[in-house]
């Protein structure tokens, strides 16, 4: 880099560039995001069915247009561990549940984590989850990194 003499004009340029950066950051919005983070809608957690039982977390995740991503992990301050699971039906009609490494998020298409499909399993809860409260979920995306959302505790 060659050193450039700082003229009023370059100073103004720098200022404008900084302002632009700040504005771009400030404009990041779920619907028309200019940053590359997936948007999360309607995150909720069903309270566990009894002491020591896991709780299931659901939401809809949409990767931004032109930027596919994948959910690769999750954590929460209220659970010792959070796993991504999928419920599926076998050929014989039995429904089973198994952990998955990742949930693919195609560019621009909403992916639902919902009962009977993908869900987060919050294990070894550290406190009571009461309907009406909210908890924090930290979602880890392959490209976008960590995104923190609040999830409502509710039954349905």
């Amino acid at each position: 880099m060659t050193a450039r003499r700082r003229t009023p004009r370059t100073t103004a340029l720098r200022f404008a560039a900084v302002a632009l950066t700040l504005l771009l950051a400030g404009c990041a919005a779920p619907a028309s995001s200019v940053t590359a983070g997936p948007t999360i809608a309607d995150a909720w957690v069903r309270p566990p069915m009894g002491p020591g039982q896991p709780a299931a977390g659901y939401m809809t995740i949409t990767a931004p247009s032109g930027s596919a991503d994948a959910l690769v992990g999750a954590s929460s301050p209220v659970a010792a561990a959070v796993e991504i699971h999928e419920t599926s039906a076998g050929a014989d009609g039995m429904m089973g549940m198994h952990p998955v490494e990742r949930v693919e998020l195609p560019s621009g298409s909403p992916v639902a984590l919902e009962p009977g499909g993908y869900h987060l399993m919050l294990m070894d809860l550290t406190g009571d989850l009461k309907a009406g409260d909210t908890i924090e979920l930290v979602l880890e995306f392959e490209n976008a990194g960590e995104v923190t959302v609040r999830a409502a505790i509710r039954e349905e």
Partner: protein
Amino acid sequence: MSVPTAGPEDEAARLDGAFRIVVVLALGLLVLTAIRLVAGGDPPLQAEALPNTAPTTGQTRSPTPAPIDVEAYLDTEVRAAPDIELTGPAGPLSLAAMRGRPVLVFFGYTHCPDVCPATIGTVGLAIDAYARDAEAVFVSVDPERDTPDWLAEFVRFMPPGFRAVSGTPTEIRATADAWGVRYARVETDQPGVYTMAHTADVFVVDRGGTLRARFPFGTDAATMTAVLAAIEDLPPAEASAAPNASPPTEAPTTALSPVLVSSSVWSGGGSPVIFRLDTEEPTAPIEAVLLGTDGVAVGDPVPVVAVRPEGVAEVSYVATLDIPAPGAWRVELRSAAGVGVVDLTALDPGGTAALGEPAPAAPTATAADVGSLTWLTTDPLPDPRLYGTTPADALAAGQPFVFVADSYRFKVTQQCGQAIVMAKQLLDRWTGVPFIHHEPLRYSVVTTEPVLEGTLEDPRLTDVATAWGVGDGGDDMKSMPWIFVVDRHGTVRAKYYGVIGSADVDVILTQLADEDRTALRPVQDGPLAPVAAPRSAARVWE
């Protein structure tokens, strides 16, 4: 949206290009931001403001609900509901004793975080909306963990009108069988931690005790309520239940009450069928006869072998049956103590390696052959024991072996990867038996990543997978995972597909060990053995 354009020519001349663009953009964004703020504020930053995604009640379903097709949920063949006589927190519970009220019945387990709580919630809403006297019975398929004491805790978390019942493994299996409910224990990758795969239908029993309707998983509460209301005025089932309720030729079935345990029964030769008997361990020999649904015997009686895996309390009974065709069959068990009949459905095994026939000789590679496990498995945490032996090695050594055709990464069905998990669990228990995992789909390794040849919709099978008939399970290339159990003589003795219960493989391996009268036994109280088993030094086959 009006965005300021470039200023007058003389002013533009004093700005270099970059500066001008930046200023234009900045001004434009300022305008946009101002508009947003005026129009109700900018949505908060996700990472900063932790948006509380408020509940949208009623889920994100279609805003205009379609009319409910009640008929679609009604049973076409109406019959009396099979009774449930099990134990709840408050003692014995009988479904027959609940006559006079409609009852919703479903099967599940309390350690189930997704399907069961969702069903409980929906059924609770339906009962609430019905606003009359309906009740619900939750039947546990997990007697090991769902003891009556535990259910007492559980019911406190259920809506009003719910009862939860459990029983002995045999009682529960018999109850589920009568309702046409299937379930199987499925291992997880944590030793000793398991889940239950199970039929998730909700059954509707009317006030007169007639089984009227069933709801598949995901049916909404409004539909359930509508069906509850619609069955109020239907005539009782006695008339229609009568014709098929009197097979006069049946011998008394009091002595043996067999229930089916096998997670897959195949048409073709030599399918092992695993039963439990609702009696004390009978000392008299038992034999099994295959019957058509008309009650006519097909083939000769075969001996039934009693098998009790190490550390497992219940005795299983195995009959190896030649079943001529897929579909509905009956098996009659006979002993000096009496007889018993059980219904079963045989599945079409397609072109998979035939039971009772020699196992395919196609050579598999081992870790020693290729140097890196990445070429042998897409499992990110591979267990080296799954890649140390070939079928040929096992046969040369006179060992039975288990062949697992499954892919962790390339999931052509949702069950893919689970057979590998189960094999890892059983390995700890059966250290004398080689478990051989094979990736059935061709892939290459680019740096360290497995890359599929073809697509998930149109994959390419390996020669080994083709030899075993994997991917030829009837319909298409997507039949996976498979587990094959081969005896020391190289004969395929059992095979399982899809959701595979670990107890099946455990029973078959125990049977093979018993047959050869070897000292081979599971060496530890692994995930299948809640009762501590003595650690045996003799782990080798022979």
